[in-house]
């Protein structure tokens, strides 16, 4: 009898004891230096209301999400092993507690954070990581992360060492891998079955009940009314704490509101519907006029990470002669680049608030951005002289002809609805007209433009833009001659020109360079080659700004992306 009681006591002690140990010892919290990132320790409560663009997510499955309307939501519900520091762009552990890269750069060992919970209470472990990479590497899933995680077309090897340790083995050293390895981790306990049955791609569409969408992030899905309103609710067991040990986030809910029209979204902000709003370049003066009498302030958040440019088609077999000869002639391209009136574009499209873009590198990533590149300032006189020197002579009838006497004329297309592209097109058409070159500029449906660019390849000139990634390696599909977005001549089997071969070579070299300064030197050389050969006529880049209500605290746009999404975990409302 006594013995039995003793046993029971022991058992209870053990159970209770391990229970406590679980609560106190097994969680690896993450301390966020709120005072450094923001300015104050916050108070709990309130909802943050944001303008989330024209339409809502098309899927809530992070490995099916392809467009920003979806990733804007999933990136807050799900997390990766690592994430970028919001200001420095440095790779920091997220779901991992720490990581080690081996000397030779071919092995990465992740120690996972212990005690992290999925939104449904199940613990996050190495099995989830293994499952996620199975999913990402499965071509049938079609994950957007897949391309970035392939090295020379090869997947990495990955294995579970124990419950909290995962090891990745790379086929060769690949410096940019750390920028793509932070892909969103998904729960094996909810999706493993579906993936085995080949149904992963059907899972977690927008018709899924909100409770079934489960991530590890600070926010879980609260409700979604399609294309109207989406609510994220704070996850109470999140593992981040502020300097004083308060659990983050401070705000209880995030409300995404969708407005199809940018004018009405601006008005909604003026009426107090959003807590902050990105300011469209063309509406900037209106915001400036209202700022002094409004309970919000305008904060500049740095250059736009994207690019806008004119590109001429150099794809043999799709561009007829003599156009192909003109477009592949580097002297012709250099001369024409002088006819792009960057200052006026800046003035007309952005009220003069922006930057002239010269390099393909994201202007926010100053570390890799080269300053003293060859430039092509707007000067029709210089353009004329360069064309004459290259054998494109202006006739007495005002028509410019090549050596064979062909009058120079080509089509230029873009999509309607993006003011800067229309302005670039009209000015370029007029300026080339002055030079005796006839440009037929027209705006056609965006899908048709994209189809021409990526599918039929039958076009002369296109004005379009690309969104930028922070690390320059994100441009792989543009700058490698085999890339699908190597727009002027995609999918090359071997580089068509010497300079493209050199860029390919540099590109592979930067991927192998594990020391950042070495990588930078390689990117500098690449930028010189691109500036010399002008495959793309870069135009201008806007200064982005955000209007932020005064009651938001710790709300400072980050440097990596210029947004406030990375601050949601420690923003608070001071009412």
């Amino acid at each position: 009898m006594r013995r039995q009681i003793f046993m029971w006591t022991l058992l209870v002690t053990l159970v209770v004891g391990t229970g406590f140990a679980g609560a106190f010892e097994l969680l690896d919290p993450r301390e966020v230096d709120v005072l450094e990132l923001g300015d104050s320790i916050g108070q709990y409560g309130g909802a943050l209301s944001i303008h989330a663009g024209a339409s809502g997510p098309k899927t809530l499955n992070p490995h099916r999400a392809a467009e920003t309307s979806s990733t804007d939501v999933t990136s807050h519900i799900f997390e990766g092993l690592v994430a970028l520091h919001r200001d420095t762009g440095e790779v920091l552990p997220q779901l991992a507690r720490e990581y080690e890269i081996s000397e030779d750069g071919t092995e990465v060992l992740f120690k996972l954070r212990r005690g992290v919970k999925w939104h449904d209470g199940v613990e996050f472990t190495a099995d989830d990581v293994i499952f996620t990479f199975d999913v990402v590497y499965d071509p049938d899933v079609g994950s957007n992360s897949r391309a970035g995680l392939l090295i020379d077309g090869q997947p990495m090897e990955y294995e579970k060492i124990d419950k909290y340790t995962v090891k990745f083995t790379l086929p060769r050293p690949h410096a940019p891998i750390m920028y793509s390895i932070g892909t969103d981790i998904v729960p094996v306990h909810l999706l493993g079955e579906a993936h085995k049955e080949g149904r992963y791609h059907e899972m977690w569409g927008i018709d899924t009940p909100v409770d079934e969408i489960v991530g590890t992030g600070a926010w879980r899905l609260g409700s979604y009314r399609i294309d109207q309103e989406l609510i994220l609710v704070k996850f109470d067991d999140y593992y981040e704490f502020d300097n004083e040990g308060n659990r983050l986030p401070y705000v209880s809910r995030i409300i995404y509101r969708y407005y199809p029209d940018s004018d009405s979204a601006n008005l909604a902000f003026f009426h107090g519907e959003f807590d902050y709003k990105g300011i469209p370049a063309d509406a900037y003066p209106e915001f400036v006029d209202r700022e002094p009498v409004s309970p919000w302030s305008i904060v500049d958040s740095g250059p736009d990470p994207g690019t806008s440019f004119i590109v001429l088609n150099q794809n043999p077999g799709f561009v007829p002669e003599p156009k192909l000869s003109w477009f592949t002639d580097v002297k012709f391209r250099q001369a024409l680049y002088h006819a792009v009136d960057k200052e006026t574009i800046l003035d007309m499209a952005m009220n003069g608030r922006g930057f002239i873009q010269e390099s393909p590198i994201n202007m926010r990533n100053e570390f890799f951005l080269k300053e003293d590149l060859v430039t092509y300032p707007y000067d029709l006189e210089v353009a004329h002289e360069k064309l004459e020197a290259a054998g494109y002579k202006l006739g007495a009838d005002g028509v410019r002809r090549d050596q064979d006497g062909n009058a120079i004329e080509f089509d230029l297309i873009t999509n309607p609805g993006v003011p800067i592209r229309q302005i670039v097109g009209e000015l370029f058409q007029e300026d080339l007209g002055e030079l005796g070159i006839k440009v037929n500029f027209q705006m056609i449906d965006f899908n048709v433009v994209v189809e021409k660019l990526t599918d039929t390849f039958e076009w002369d000139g296109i004005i379009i833009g690309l969104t930028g990634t922070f690390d320059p390696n994100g441009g792989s599909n543009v700058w490698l001659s085999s890339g699908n977005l190597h727009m002027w001549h995609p999918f090359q089997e071997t580089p068509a020109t010497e300079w493209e071969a050199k860029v390919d070579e540099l590109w592979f070299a930067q991927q192998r360079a594990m020391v950042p300064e070495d990588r930078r030197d390689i990117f500098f050389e690449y930028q010189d080659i691109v500036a010399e050969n002008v495959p793309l006529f870069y135009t201008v880049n806007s200064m982005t700004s955000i209007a932020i209500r005064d009651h938001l605290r710790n709300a400072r746009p980050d440097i990596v992306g210029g947004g406030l999404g990375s601050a949601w975990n420690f923003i608070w409302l001071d009412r």
Partner: protein
Amino acid sequence: MAKNTTNPLQGTAYENEGAIRSPWKMAWRKLRRHKLAIIGMWVLIVLHLFAIFADFFAPYSELTTDRRRTYHAPTRVHIISPEGKLTRPFVYGYNRVDSLRNRYEPDKSKVYPIRFFTRGDEYNVLGLVKGNIRLFGVDAPGKIYLFGADMYGRDIFSRLAYGGRRSLFIGIIGIAVSLSIGMVYGGVSGYFGGWVDNLMMRIAEIVISIPSFYLLLALSAVLPLGLRSDIRFLMIVFILAFIGWAGLARVIRGMVLSISKMEYVAGAEAIGCSQPRIIIRHILPNTTSYVIVNATLSIPGFILSESGLSLIGVGIQHPVASWGNMLSEALKISSLSRYPWLLVPGFMIFITVLSFNFFGDGIRDALDPRAQI
């Protein structure tokens, strides 16, 4: 005659003259009593002359840009000099004082007198005669923008004149084309009757049942790039006319059906007139009054369709002006509130459509034989 109407003492003579008037003269008399119709008519005449002689009335060519004068405000015309004296009309030079909001202020030290019959941008009349005499203008570097400038610094007043060439004449050419098709088609169908009539009317009904704006969108999207702007203009006219003829053909066919039962048609057949001659000489002229009314009232439809197409960017293409594509710059609230003069083309469309409707109403009353004088 104008004297008669204004002089009550000669009223008797007027009535007597009326007794021997042709139907057309009677219609004209009725029309003249319709005040709104006459106002509409004069507005239309002025607008059409303004467009036809755009080269003369506009101070600049429609393509002349000025990149340093984005959204230039309308320049006021002064007749009192800075010293307070009455002088010939002049404008001040303007400086951009706020590049963010494109605000311009007059610089009183720069005075540019308006010169009449001055030499301006060169133009070609019908591609034959070159000229450069324009009604008014100011010496460079001054600029006169009566209605302000658009984003590219182009003069809106000048572009209204040149744009009117497309926006106004698209209606007239369009209605001419669709009337010709509609009258011949309806005439043949109504005259022959029977299975010919049946077949032709079913085809017309198919054309009517096509949702026209979507067809317009589709057709204008397949127009090739690099089409000369005047060819493109004509193609759009034909696209519009192709949709517009069927409704008219149906009404004409109904009228012809009843007219062809008249004795004089039987008479014409009896003396051996050919069928085309009977249709064209004897039957169709009886539909004239309906056709005229219909034409005047359908022109605004063409004008609005062109504006709609150009507004969404598939009609007349920039930089060539039309009222519709000029209006597309006013689509955004932010630019509209800062540069309200961008709405002027819309106002012109409004005036034109209204005038055509007033004028058409007047004509309908005037040509209606049952209406009392």
